[in-house]
């Protein structure tokens, strides 16, 4: 009733103080509804997968190979594969990403080239994941003859995660107050010593947040590894970086679209393990960030 009389007032006297207040209430209500529409699915998705998937999770599910055409057994090789791919991605993207962040925040002059680097980073962030897959196929699998392998997949994923790592790490490094650098240089440290002993330790939590967020993306992506690293099924674990591998996201794709008559609990169980893997990393990053903010020395 209250809403209706409010609406009537707005209709009759659109500019009276009462209807201005009513409009605001109505508007805030709409904004709130939009926020609820955004938030509810997130919570619902996570809860739903937890509830449906938890029954499938057992020690055996996590440590055995799939059997009987994926319809029985566990997802061990997919978990190991995603772990290998994530580690491999970190090996390439972390040094390169932090190096680029140091360059942009400590060395780069404010000129056209630096702007070009920034535009390139923004573009790398926007390139569709499947295009990274094509690129990885063209450069790593075929041109460098790495074949469908963990190495080719990790290299492809590294380039994809680079923009996330660079931009978060740069922000963290820039947040270190200029006075820290000035004092370090003034007591005789070189530029690199200042970076290594002062700037990097101070910005480490922020850099780690960026690294984890980047790797989280890599762990959950399917399209870039479709043609570069992932295989449908492997009867054994990969022996070397040049072997192909199974991976959690690709495995979930396979068992939810390619295998008819797949038991539902294995599907939800796989989705749950993937979500825990990815959101767990996200949670760690959030905790590092908030703890670092609380303990900051400036």
């Amino acid at each position, binding site marked *: 009733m209250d809403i209706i009389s409010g609406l009537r007032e707005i209709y009759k006297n659109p500019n009276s103080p009462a209807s201005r207040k009513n*409009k605001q209430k109505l508007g805030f209500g709409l*904004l*709130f509804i939009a*926020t609820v*529409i*955004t*938030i509810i*699915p*997130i*919570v619902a*998705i996570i809860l*739903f*997968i937890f509830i449906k998937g938890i029954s499938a999770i057992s020690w055996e599910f996590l440590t055995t190979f799939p059997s009987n055409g994926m319809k029985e057994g566990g997802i061990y090789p997919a978990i190991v594969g995603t772990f290998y791919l994530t580690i491999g991605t970190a090996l390439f993207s972390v*040094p*390169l990403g932090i*190096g*680029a962040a*140091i*360059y*942009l925040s400590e*060395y*780069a002059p404010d000129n056209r*080239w630096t702007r*070009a*680097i*920034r535009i*390139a980073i*923004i*573009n*790398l962030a*926007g*390139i*569709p*994941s*499947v*295009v*990274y*897959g*094509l*690129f990885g*196929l*063209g*450069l790593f699998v*075929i041109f460098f003859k790495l074949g469908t392998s963990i190495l080719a997949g990790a290299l492809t994923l590294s380039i994809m995660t680079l923009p996330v790592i660079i931009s978060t790490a740069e922000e963290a490094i820039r947040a270190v107050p200029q006075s820290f650098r000035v004092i370090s240089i003034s007591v005789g440290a070189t530029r*690199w010593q200042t970076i290594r002993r002062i700037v990097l330790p101070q910005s480490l939590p922020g850099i780690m947040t960026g690294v984890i*967020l980047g790797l989280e993306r890599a762990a*959950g992506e*399917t*399209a870039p590894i*479709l043609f570069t690293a992932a295989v449908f099924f492997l009867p054994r674990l990969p022996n070397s970086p040049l072997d192909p591998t199974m991976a959690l*996201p*690709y495995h979930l*794709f396979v068992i*939810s679209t390619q295998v008819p008559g797949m038991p539902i609990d294995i*599907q939800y169980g796989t989705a749950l393990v*993937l*979500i825990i893997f*990815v*959101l767990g990393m*996200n949670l760690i990053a959030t905790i590092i960030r908030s703890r670092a903010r609380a303990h900051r020395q400036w």
Partner: protein
Amino acid sequence: METTKNWNEFILKWLIKFSGYSAIIFVILIFYFLLLAGLPTIREVSLSNLLSTQWYPIENYFGLLPLIGGTIIVTFGAAMFAIPIGLCTAVYISEVSPQSARNYLKPLVEALGGIPSVVLGFLGIMILAPNLRLLLDLPTGLSALAGSILLAGIAIPTIVSIAEDALDSVPRSYRDGALALGATEWQTIWRVTFPAARSGVLTAIMLGIGRAIGETMAVMMITGNAAVLPIKLNSLFHPVRTMTATIAAEMGEVAKNSTHYHVLFFIGLLLFIVSLGINIAASTAMFRQRKRAERILS
């Protein structure tokens, strides 16, 4: 002793500089490899074939229009959901919600951005598609509409995150000025704060749409993958097939250097150019806003 230190510093500086420039190198490499494998298309397939409405690669029909149309209709549908909901959520988080809620709301929305698209695709198959089919009485729930809804879920976190940053960076004094002149908070938001943040909001929308265009796995799993030109009004309720999904679904089965292989890379090249355009436009909008803010505040 002194010279080795200088040498180390010299080498490190160049490594760091190289990392900085790596982003440019990678963008150029990606472009080069897409051109290398994509351009033979122009020699091998006639323009009238490429612009036809039939995509039957096995019989050498390479009409791209159904795929481009599929991408457009799914992205358009996603934008219809994601832009209003995303912007309203951003305004609510930045301008209306209490500070304590803000600290939880934004990480929660960003967590949705972290959920792997293959998980969203999986839930789409399990929950969204069957319910849409029942609700709208369709022959199949795997449709452009289902794809649009999922893509909206993927674009919303991007839109909320960037638009909220833009609104948050509008100086406090703008709002105080408007409120002091007697405007309500509601009027202040839409006549002062929101217009002041409009380049950032525009960037948010463009990057959100960019993510929707480039999304692969979720779309491939849920749109039904029928390469039919969506020209009728009710196309939204029928299966479609997007450019990204076509690459992901077919690249695994084509022979290297066949015409089909070249055409798939050509589609990748088109996607790359579109994302380049969107991201360059978005970043110039962002640079412009920063310059304007500096001018006003100086």
